């Protein structure tokens, strides 16, 4: 009896203490950067390298530069497990601590948080994921999805295919298969895909993969064998990717005609397929390998000092660098915010302005220690929160990813009308959606 009562007592005390703790305001002498990460759950394989990259770059700034503008960054991970419920809980728990920006790293969580962003005055940086329509800054002043939206990505892939076929006109009569995670994330590109199919006269075959079935996929790939599409495009995430790559090679699908979006191109995704996966293509917009001064700094200041959770052989792999890319944007936005406001310790409202004035030229990338790491990010404005920047194609050579194309620019003319329509539809459906009142800053 005693034990039970003690336990109940402890639980109650814990609850009360949580209340007291959570209500305490955060001391405002550092810049608070919460990272929504997932190192657990079925999508952990994609989540872990990204979490490491984000964490390590910011830690490196603290170690090397003493933070940004002389103010320490308070980096704190909140584990979401890719679960919407926990994502919302993370949002609530960081909200009172003056967060600068939130990176949800899950399309599902992003969708939940978008309406909250403007109310709670916290910008959301959903880097090349989330709601494509959020690129329309007029309607979504608090949401950013640089460097490109899913629709941009799809148009780049179609462009690449067209190039290989000898011109977009040659796509006529061809069949393109689309295998995707059967959720909002995988379904979003479909309208554009269907429109492009109409415009260029190719056929589309859809192969949905339920989240629960993503480690099996044998029926989908059997259907691929039957339909013999000329090209396969994949919108996969988590454990779906390596399985798809394996099934493709087992079913004898030509790997160099199989293209993944940038979220299907991590080292782990292809590694499972091993040598057989050679030729698999994926989009990417962040640099490969560790051959950049800033990445070397991460190694020197963070990894070698044991301040990182990354495994040695997974340092600077594709998704790690993707995480680094994400936090470079965060750091730049914070710098911009400091310049714009003159404040040292910036909060969400300031960083929103900083994000809207993001402008990273080739020279700036070099200055940051990332020469040639990524294409310039110069398209962001108050109206355009994505930038519609290009990405390049990478190919798996059996051991590692190799860059095989220059930057492919998206078909902005096809994407933009769709974005505007989608944004309008979203705003119309969400009755009472706030009009943009935030002023627009000049880019620096």
């Amino acid at each position, binding site marked *: 009896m005693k*034990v*039970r*009562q003690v336990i*109940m007592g402890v*639980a109650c005390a*814990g*609850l009360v*203490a*949580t*209340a007291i*703790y*959570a*209500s305490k305001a955060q001391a405002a002498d550092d810049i608070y950067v919460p990272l929504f*990460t997932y*190192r*657990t759950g079925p999508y952990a394989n994609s989540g872990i390298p990204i*979490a490491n990259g984000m964490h390590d770059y910011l830690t490196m700034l603290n170690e090397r530069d003493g933070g940004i503008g002389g103010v320490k960054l308070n980096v*704190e*991970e*909140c*584990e979401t*497990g890719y*679960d*919407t*419920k926990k994502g*919302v*809980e993370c949002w*609530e*728990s960081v*909200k*009172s601590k003056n967060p600068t920006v939130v990176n949800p790293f899950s399309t*599902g969580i992003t*969708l*939940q948080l*978008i*309406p*909250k962003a*403007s*109310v709670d005055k916290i910008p959301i940086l959903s880097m090349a994921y989330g709601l*494509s*329509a959020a690129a329309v800054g007029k309607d979504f002043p608090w949401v950013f999805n640089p460097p490109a939206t899913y629709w941009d990505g799809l148009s780049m892939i179609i462009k690449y295919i067209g190039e290989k076929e000898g011109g977009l006109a040659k796509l006529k009569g061809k069949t393109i298969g689309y295998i995707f995670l*059967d*959720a*909002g994330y995988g*379904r*979003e590109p479909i*309208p554009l895909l269907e429109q492009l199919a109409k415009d260029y006269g190719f056929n589309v075959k859809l192969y949905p993969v*339920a*989240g*629960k079935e993503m480690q099996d996929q044998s029926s989908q790939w059997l259907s691929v064998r039957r339909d013999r599409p000329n090209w396969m495009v994949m919108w996969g995430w988590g454990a779906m990717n390596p399985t798809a790559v394996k099934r493709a090679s087992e079913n004898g699908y030509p790997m160099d005609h199989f293209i993944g979006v940038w979220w299907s191109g991590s080292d782990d995704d292809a590694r499972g397929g091993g040598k057989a996966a050679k030729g698999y293509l994926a989009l990417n917009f962040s640099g490969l390998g560790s051959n950049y001064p800033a990445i070397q700094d991460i190694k020197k200041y963070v990894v070698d000092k044991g301040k990182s*959770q990354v495994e040695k052989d997974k340092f600077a792999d594709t998704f790690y660098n993707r995480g680094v890319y994400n936090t470079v944007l965060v750091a730049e936005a914070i710098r911009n915010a400091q310049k714009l406001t003159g404040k040292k310790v910036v909060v969400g409202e300031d960083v929103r302005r900083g994000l809207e004035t993001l402008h990273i030229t080739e020279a700036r990338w070099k200055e940051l220690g990332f020469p040639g790491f990524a294409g310039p990010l110069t398209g962001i404005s108050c109206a355009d929160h994505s930038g519609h920047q290009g990405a390049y194609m990478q190919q798996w050579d059996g051991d590692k990813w190799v860059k095989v194309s220059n930057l492919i620019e998206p078909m902005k003319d096809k994407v933009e009308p769709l974005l505007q329509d*989608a944004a309008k*539809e*979203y705003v119309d*459906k*969400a*009755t*009472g*959606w*706030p009009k943009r009142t935030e002023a627009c800053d000049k880019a620096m």
Partner: protein
Amino acid sequence: MFYREAGQFKTSYASDQAIFPILQDRIGIAVILVAAFSLPLYANDFILNAVMIPFLIFALASIGLNLLTGYTGQLSLGTGAFMGVGAYACYKLTSIWPDVNIIVWVICSGFFAAGVGAIFGLPSLRIKGFYLAIATLAAQFFLEWCFIRIAWLYNYNISGAIEVPQRTVLGVIVTGPRATSETRYIVVLAIVVAMTWIASNLMHGRIGRTWMAVRDMDIAAELMGIRLLPTKLMAFAVSSFYCGVAGALMVFLWYGGAEPAVFNINQSFTILFMIIIGGLGSLLGAYLGAALIYILPIVLRFVPEWLGIPIHAATVEHITFMIVGVLIVFFLIVEPAGLARLWSIGKQKLRVWPFPY
């Protein structure tokens, strides 16, 4: 000492049939209700948004499942999907008739869930126990697939998710991002309290007795004139009604939007844990279970911070999993009838205090 029934004599069967026959219990409930309704006065956003609102919604869903599993003895793993039916029904209703009071729609969405629940309850006539549980899995996965595949349900949104539109009741914003946490909390609390009261009424009357009769000894119940199929279907319907309303509340007053993955099998499991840990066949148990399973991990997240131990967020998550697992086993060993039984044992002790028995 203070918990004595001496001197409280019942002079009518009506007062003896009351739900809380003992004065102290009535006082206790009144105090809790007052405290709950005045919570927004002294609690912050985090407590309301991330602790209390979810807790109440889970408690409601647990009551729903408890009506079916705890009171009627039909094991169901389809809770998540039935919640989804409620959420999507509410979304469709308010997009077709936006001017109707949203609270009316939240309640109405329960009827859709009830209908779907009753259909998937049909196999319960022929199958029982784990077999029935697996049959309800069919409901879970089939409905989940429908939520993804039937675009009409989410108004053909490109994201495949539903976003809660802003709705006002009597000029106060109740749903949508601009609804304050205080408003949402009060609305959720009022609905949950009212529905708990109704569930308690049902369970103390004829319907509750027939359900428990079916649970305890279905053959004897049938030989006493209780028709099994209508009784079980009604339990499925009422239970799904509760789950449906909980689902609608979850999306409209907590998340503010949802994609189908929200209503997945893990949701069903979580709620099943809650009623087992809390106590099968106890409304109080639904609350206790929801508190333990939902709030404990949140508390655990903060523990290392208080103690000043630097520990990775992911490690906390792993440890939380382990602790929850151990706690489930621990509670099952210590008191298989759940927290509610612990509570009633405690009350019994108080009643006879200072004597041990």
